[in-house]
């Protein structure tokens, strides 16, 4: 009995030692992957930052008004933000690869899914980022055009443009992530349709006279459109 107990104990100990002997090198590989991954991610971050500076990405961001938004929310510049994002995505990718090497049963399929999901996450973040840039740029362009044309509600026009582009980019991002695709699609369709229907009603019913004057000026007597106060600036 005692002998059998000793044999079992030694077999269990050997099993543990064997498992440890198998696990420790994997852990080491994992740690090395994480460290090297961190270094590689840092190099990628530096490269991305340099490229973004080279193409004057901050200027683009300034132009679109995103920099003002980032400053207001105490976030770093667009170049810094994007390069840090790339660093974290790259490093998380390496960490997941490292964890996969450990060979923990049941974890592998989830890690594979997560790794496969990363590019879609990057694409979704980019969609939202550039969507917000475009929303800011075009809403400002609409505001300026409306103010200079003497339109009665420039802010309403500007907000409508911003909302439309933001909703469009967020919907596209959700679709990319595969989250509630149908719901988002229907919600987008409803919002977009409601907005345009509302504008059509407001223009056609609420602003009948305005619509009439606009259409007359635009199509009926195009030559009689009012020019800038009959004065030549130059």
């Amino acid at each position, binding site marked *: 009995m005692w002998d059998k107990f000793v044999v079992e104990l030694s077999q269990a100990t050997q099993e543990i030692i064997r498992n440890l002997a198998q696990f420790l090198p994997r852990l080491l590989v994992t740690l090395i992957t994480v460290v090297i991954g961190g270094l590689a991610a840092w190099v990628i971050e530096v490269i991305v930052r340099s490229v973004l500076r080279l193409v004057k990405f901050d*200027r683009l961001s*300034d*132009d*679109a*008004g995103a920099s*003002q938004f980032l400053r207001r929310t105490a976030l770093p510049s667009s170049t810094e933000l994007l390069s840090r994002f790339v660093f974290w995505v790259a490093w998380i990718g390496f960490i997941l690869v490292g964890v996969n090497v450990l060979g923990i049963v049941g974890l592998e399929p989830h890690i594979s899914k997560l790794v496969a999901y990363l590019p879609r996450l990057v694409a979704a973040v980019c969609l939202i980022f550039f969507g917000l840039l475009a929303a800011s*740029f075009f809403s*400002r*362009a609409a*505001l*300026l*055009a409306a*103010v*200079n044309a*003497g339109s009665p509600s*420039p*802010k309403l026009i500007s907000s409508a443009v911003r909302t439309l582009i933001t909703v469009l980019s967020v919907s596209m991002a959700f679709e990319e992530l595969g989250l509630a695709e149908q719901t988002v699609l229907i919600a987008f369709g409803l919002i977009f349709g409601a907005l345009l229907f509302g504008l059509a009603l407001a223009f056609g019913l609420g602003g009948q006279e305005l619509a009439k004057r606009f259409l007359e000026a635009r199509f009926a007597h195009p030559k009689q459109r009012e*020019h*800038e*106060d*009959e*004065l*030549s*600036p*130059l």
Partner: protein
Amino acid sequence: MPEESILTDDFLHELMSVGEVDLLVGVPTYNDAASIGQIVQAIRAGLVKYFPRQRAVIVNADGGSQDQTQELVRAASINDLQQAPSPHALRTLHSISARYGGGPASGRGLYAILAAADLLHSSACAVISADSTNIEPEWIAHLLQPVCRDGFDLVTPVYHRHKFDGLLLRNLVYPMTRALYARQVREPYPSEFAFSGRLATQIFGQEGWAEEAEQDGAKLYLTISAITSGFKLAQALLGNKTRAQSNPPADVVDALREGVGPLFLSLDHYPAWRSNAPSEPVPIFGGRPELTLDPLRINRKRLYDLFRSGVEELAPLLNSIVSRSTLRELQQLASREEQDFCYCDELWVRTIYEFAASYHRAVINRDHIIQALAPLYRGRAYTFLLENRDSQGEEVERNVEALCLTFEKFKPYLEDLWDGRR
């Protein structure tokens, strides 16, 4: 766009058929069939009458007209020769019409004419706008003689104008160009002008001019280049300024893009603006320009309303362009009643300099900065109209001179903004 794409094979082929010339008159066109025949005939008459001994060519640089402008140029030349044989002409007067590449743009047209002047080794060159329906043959003499006879390198025009015509020119483009580059050129953005072959060769040879030609305001760059490179400048009185019936007054935003955008941009390209030399007058040939005072129907209320709504609606945007104190003053101004409204010289100059500095730093998209200036310009135009409602020509000129001096006085303010000291 590289120069090869502006100077098409067709254009170069036409130039080669002419050979060397003494004088060149360039007419950039784009769908100007209504006025071009009359303009070409006046130019021919001017060349034949005043320069009979010189070899001359009229170069029509066309941007791709669809209304037979080019055919009319050729026909006008032929008709003129057949119907009115020139008793004074001792030389052949060539007339060519060719399309430049890249599509219609005033800068490309000017670039093609500069290239023609350089390639044909002409000693003097004039450019006539296809809008100038009241052109007289004497214009050619007034523009070219200071170059041929007196050795000037750039001759810009002055006109008899209505006291309320060219408000952007009088309230911004002229005073600011004068303050920055220290020369009193009344029309730094000229429709008609003349230049020497030497200036054409220098400008044409300058690196980056083909790119400048792609932008609005190439004519302004020509003037500033001539000033900063130390060329001899003169002005010539051409008579009344009118424009073709087919071209209504330009939209304010377009005019700001053409006249003010390039002026702001020139601060980046020409560091000579930082010199503190006082502005020097530029001689005028042909007499002093006068202001006409005919009654004019102007919708002043609209200018006032657009200023008020602009300041109100664009306040967050203006906040990123002008200083807080300037914005506060603009908001106070916008809250005033029509009769108390006065966008004074000092506030206007500070506003413009702050816009120029923000344009330099590109705090937002540069075109948006220019568009944001439009309501403020309308406010200033309103004040100008109100101030000079009952003024005679001399008083209007005094007011413009006072504004110019304010621009010069506040130049250190712009330098401080430029260097980030404010």
